[in-house]
């Protein structure tokens, strides 16, 4: 069993991308964008995470089954956060006594 080896250049490019994105997220955090600070920071984190998963963890070349499992993990994580937020963010929208 021998695998197609990825070139060092690809890995170094991904690495440089990650470093640049880290510098960007630190830089942007010093500018007041209001609500967008959070959105920008999380977008950059998601891009960085995706780069690591796709290139360093090699999901890009993995079998379909592995891709499905990797995707399922992050999809379930999204369910967790979205359902929790849909509860907490919507509290108080309906009239009535405060019950929590």
């Amino acid at each position, binding site marked *: 069993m021998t695998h197609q080896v990825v070139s060092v250049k690809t890995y170094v490019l991904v690495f440089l991308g990650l470093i640049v994105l880290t510098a960007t997220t630190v830089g942007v955090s010093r500018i007041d964008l209001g609500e967008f600070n*959070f959105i920008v*920071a999380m977008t950059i984190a998601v891009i960085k*995470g995706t780069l690591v998963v796709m290139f360093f963890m090699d999901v890009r070349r993995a079998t379909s089954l592995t891709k499905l*499992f990797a995707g399922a*993990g992050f999809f*379930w994580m999204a369910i*967790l956060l979205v359902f929790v937020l849909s509860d907490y963010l919507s509290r108080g929208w309906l009239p009535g006594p405060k019950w929590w």
Partner: protein
Amino acid sequence: MAHSDATLTAHSPGLRHHFDDSEQQFQSSILGMWVFLLTEVMFFGGMFGGYTVYRNLYPDAFASSSKFMNLGIGAFNTGVLICSSLTMVLAVRGAQLGSKKTLILFLVLTLFLGCVFLGLKVVEYHEKWVDHHIPGPGFRYEEAQYFHQAQILFFLYFAMTGMHAMHMIVGAGLLTTLIVMASRNRFSAQWYTPVEMIGLYWHFVDIVWIFLFPLLYLIGRTK
């Protein structure tokens, strides 16, 4: 006789008999490792969920805490972890090419970078101790109106970075094991499954930090 002796023995020495071939065995290991990583995603997910809830309940208190985090160390450590992911992937590449020297060199570098991260984490935890930012009876907070809410934030800070550091310590132990195995010629281009598996684990721990860093250090910086 259906099988000749030749077909029974002509397979890679690392192949277990319940797999068709080495490729299938390798892919099964990768899938199994991902299943484990999914349980880790759910484990950290609980803490990220808790952070999400409390940050929505007390956005101002959480934002006020960012300025007490050591941004310099946090950002530097993010870079250290990204470097260690690069060295890890180069170690796996060395294993794929069957180069023992490259493999060991990059495993040692990865271990070293992991230790740098943990060492700086100790410095940060010590700062929190000195500043009385550890939740409990000794807790003090510069903005008195957020005293109770900020304790929740610092509790989450220690729970999340602490569990992350715990994973780093486990990772350091695993890397040490790999270095010993590699120096005993246990790996070859035909079989290096443990290197690949621990690589996946190491990158996962890196991803957790990629999310922890902005959430704990960056959000609310401008306030």
